[in-house]
C-alpha cells in the first residue's frame, strides 16, 4: 500500500472529508435560504410598485377614459427605468406602451403573471417581467409590470457565491483531511511500530504518549497499563519457573541422595526404614512447596472465585489467632488479639484464613526466640488486630522481633526470598508472598512497616462487596 493510498484509507481522512462535506451542504443551505428571502423581498417590492402604478392609472382612466390612459402610458413609457406598460384594443393591437411582444394569450389572463417579454427599442431576448393584467370595458387590455432583471442578477450573485464557497470548502476539506489524517496516521504508525517491537520480544517498549491527553493518548496509556500488567505477570511466571528450578533442586537433590545412600553398602532394615522415612518427609516438603506455588499463582491470576462468600473476617482473624495461641506460648510470646466482630468482607475464607495464619506463623517464628527458649528482651508480645472503618478492613500483625530493614521490605514479599537471619529457620520463603498474593486477589494491599522494634504487617481489604481489584490497587500493592 502506498503512503498516499494509506492516507486516503485513514479513518481520520474520511471523517474529516465527511465533516467538511456536511459543512459545505450546510453553507449552501444557508446561502439558498438567504437568496430565497432576498428574491422574495424583491418580488414583494415589485408587486407593491405595480399595485401603486395600477392605482394611479386606474384613477386616470376613471377621469379621461381610454384616450387619457393611452396618453399617460405613452408619456410614462418614455421615462428611463420606467415600469412596463401595454394597452391593447379588443383586437389585441397595441395602442400604447413600451412592451413590444408577449407570448400569445398572456393578455387574456387577468391577474398577476410572470412572463417573458420583449421591448420595442432594444431586442435583448430572455427578459422576464412580473406584470398585472387588467381587462377594461370595451375589450381593452392593460398590462402594468416591472422588469425582473434585478431579481435574476441577485439570483446569479447568489449562485456564484455558492459555487465559490463550495470550491473553497472542497479545497479546505482536502487539505484538512490530509493534515489530520497524516497527524493521526503518524501517531498510529508509531503505536504500531511499538506494538511490533513488543511482539518481537522487546517487552520493555511502551506505546508513545504525546502528552496532549487526547483519545489516542488515553488509548496508549490504557494499553501501556495493560502491557505493564502483562509484563508483571510474565515476570512473575519467569520468577516462578526460575524459583522452581533453583529452590526445588535442593530438596530434590537431598531426596535423591537419601535414596542413593540407602542403596549403597549393606544397610540393614532399620537404616532402610530411616532412609525411606526421610524420603517421604522430603517429598512431603516438596508437595507443600508445590501447593503453595500453585496457590500463589492461582491467587495472582485471580482464578480462585467459586469459594467467594460474605464472611466475618474479624471472626476469621480471631479463630486463626486462637489456633496459633498455644504455639506462641511455646515460643514464649503472648498473642494479644483485638479483633472486632462484624467486619464483613466478600472473599474466600479459606484463603484469607491461610494468609492470616502465614502472617501469624511468621511473627511467631521470626518475632520470638527459638521455641523453648525465653524470648529476648521486649519480644514477649505479638499484637494481632482486625478493625474496620466501613469502607475498609485493616488486619495487622505486629511483633517485636528483629524486623525487616526498610531496604529489604519490598523484596521480602517475593517468592522464596529468605532474608538474612531467616535462613536458619524452617520454611521455604513462601508464606509472606502467599499472603500478599491472596490479599491482592481480594483487592487489598500488604504493607510492611517498622514496629519499632519489630515488624508490623498491615493488610487493608475493601469491606463489604468487593469490586474487582482495580489496577490502582494492584499498583499500590
Amino acid at each position: 500500500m502506498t503512503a498516499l493510498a494509506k492516507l486516503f484509507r485513514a479513518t481520520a481522512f474520511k471523517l474529516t472529508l465527511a465533516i467538511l462535506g456536511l459543512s459545505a451542504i450546510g453553507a449552501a443551505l444557508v446561502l439558498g435560504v438567504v437568496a430565497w428571502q432576498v428574491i422574495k423581498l424583491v418580488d414583494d417590492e415589485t408587486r407593491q410598485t405595480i399595485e401603486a402604478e395600477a392605482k394611479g392609472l386606474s384613477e386616470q382612466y376613471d377621469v379621461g377614459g381610454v384616450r387619457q390612459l393611452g396618453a399617460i402610458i405613452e408619456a410614462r413609457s418614455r421615462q428611463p427605468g420606467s415600469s412596463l406598460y401595454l394597452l391593447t384594443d379588443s383586437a389585441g393591437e397595441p395602442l400604447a406602451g413600451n412592451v413590444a411582444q408577449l407570448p400569445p394569450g398572456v393578455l387574456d389572463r387577468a391577474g398577476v403573471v410572470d412572463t417573458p417579454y420583449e421591448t420595442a427599442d432594444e431586442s435583448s431576448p430572455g427578459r422576464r417581467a412580473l406584470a398585472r393584467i387588467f381587462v377594461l370595458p370595451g375589450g381593452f387590455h392593460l398590462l402594468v409590470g416591472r422588469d425582473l432583471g434585478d431579481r435574476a442578477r441577485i439570483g446569479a450573485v447568489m449562485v456564484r457565491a455558492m459555487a465559490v464557497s463550495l470550491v473553497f470548502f472542497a479545497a479546505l476539506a482536502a487539505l484538512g483531511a490530509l493534515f489530520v489524517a497524516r497527524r493521526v496516521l503518524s501517531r498510529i504508525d508509531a503505536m504500531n511500530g511499538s506494538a511490533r517491537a513488543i511482539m518481537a520480544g522487546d517487552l520493555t517498549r511502551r506505546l508513545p504518549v504525546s502528552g496532549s491527553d487526547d483519545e489516542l493518548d488515553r488509548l496508549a496509556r490504557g494499553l501501556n497499563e495493560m502491557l505493564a500488567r502483562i509484563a508483571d505477570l510474565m515476570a512473575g511466571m519467569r520468577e516462578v519457573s526460575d524459583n522452581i528450578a533453583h529452590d526445588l533442586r535442593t530438596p530434590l537433590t537431598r531426596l535423591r541422595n537419601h535414596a542413593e545412600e540407602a542403596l549403597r553398602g549393606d544397610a540393614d532394615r532399620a537404616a532402610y526404614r530411616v532412609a525411606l522415612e526421610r524420603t517421604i518427609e522430603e517429598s512431603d516438603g516438596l508437595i507443600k512447596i508445590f501447593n503453595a506455588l500453585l496457590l500463589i499463582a492461582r491467587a495472582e491470576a485471580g482464578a480462585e472465585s467459586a469459594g467467594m462468600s460474605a464472611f466475618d473476617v474479624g471472626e476469621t482473624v480471631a479463630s486463626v489467632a486462637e489456633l496459633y495461641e498455644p504455639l506462641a506460648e511455646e515460643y514464649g510470646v503472648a498473642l494479644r488479639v483485638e479483633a472486632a466482630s462484624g467486619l464483613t468482607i466478600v472473599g474466600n475464607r479459606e484463603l484469607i484464613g491461610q494468609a492470616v495464619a502465614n502472617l501469624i506463623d511468621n511473627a511467631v517464628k521470626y518475632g520470638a526466640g527459638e521455641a523453648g527458649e525465653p524470648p529476648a528482651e521486649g519480644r514477649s508480645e505479638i499484637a494481632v488486630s482486625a478493625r474496620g472503618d466501613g469502607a475498609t478492613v485493616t488486619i495487622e500483625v505486629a511483633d517485636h522481633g528483629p524486623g525487616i530493614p526498610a531496604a529489604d521490605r519490598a523484596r521480602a514479599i517475593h517468592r522464596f526470598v529468605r532474608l538474612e537471619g531467616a535462613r536458619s529457620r524452617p520454611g521455604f520463603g513462601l508464606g509472606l508472598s502467599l499472603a500478599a498474593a491472596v490479599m491482592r486477589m481480594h483487592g487489598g494491599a500488604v504493607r510492611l512497616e517498622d514496629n519499632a522494634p519489630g515488624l508490623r504487617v498491615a493488610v487493608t481489604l475493601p469491606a463489604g462487596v468487593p469490586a474487582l481489584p482495580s489496577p490502582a490497587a494492584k499498583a499500590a500493592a
Partner: protein
Amino acid sequence: MSSMRILIIEDDRDAAAYLVKAFREAGYAVDHAADGVGGYDLAQEGGYDVAIVDRMLPKMDGLALIGALRAQNIETPVLILSALGQVDDRVKGLRAGGDDYLAKPYAFSELLARVEALARRRPKGAPEETTYRLGDLALDRLSHKVTRAGEEIALQPREFRLLEYLMQNAGKVVTRTMLLEHVWDYHFDPQTNVIDVHVSRLRAKIDRDFDAPMLHTVRGAGYMLRDGAR
C-alpha cells in the same frame, strides 16, 4: 474388625493396585472399578461402607457419578480423591455430594483415617447421642461438662470441640488435617505443628492426673483417643 466393604473407582492402574493392596492389608474387603460407568454399576448394587472416587474418570466423571448415586438415594459415604486440590475444587466436590475430599498426592495414613471416619459414621437420621463415654471419660454435649473418673475437667471451648471430635472417633486414628477441618473449619496447611500444641494442651488436662493415658499419638499419622484401661 468385621470386614468393611470398600469400593475404589480409580482409572490409574498403578494407583488403583496400590490402593487395593493397602486397603486389603488394612483389613477391608475391596472392589475396584476402572471407569465411571463400571463404578456406578457396582455402587448401585450397594452394600459398600465407603466409596473412594477419583475425580476424573473415563466414561463418567466422578462428580457426575456421585450426583447419579445421590439422585437414586444411594447414600454410601463417598471420599473424592483428586489431583485438583485447590479450595474451589474441594468446594465443588463437596457440593456435588461427596462426603470428604482428599487431594493427590496424599499420605495413605491420611486416606485410611478419613475412610475409617466415614465408614463408621452414624447412619443418617439416627438420634445423636448427648453424652459420649469412653472408659471413665465422659463428655456431656449439652452442658459442655467433661468428667474423668467423676472429676470435672475444665476445658476451653476449643478444647471441648477437640475432645468432642476425638470421642466421636474414639478408637480411630484422626489426622491433624482432619482435626483442623472439623474443629477449626479450615482446610489449609498451617505450616507449623499448631495442632500438636493444642492436642498436648488437651492431653495435659485429661491425662496428666490419671494413670492410664487415653490420648495417644500415632506416629506418622495423627492421634487416637482410646480407653487405656482395656
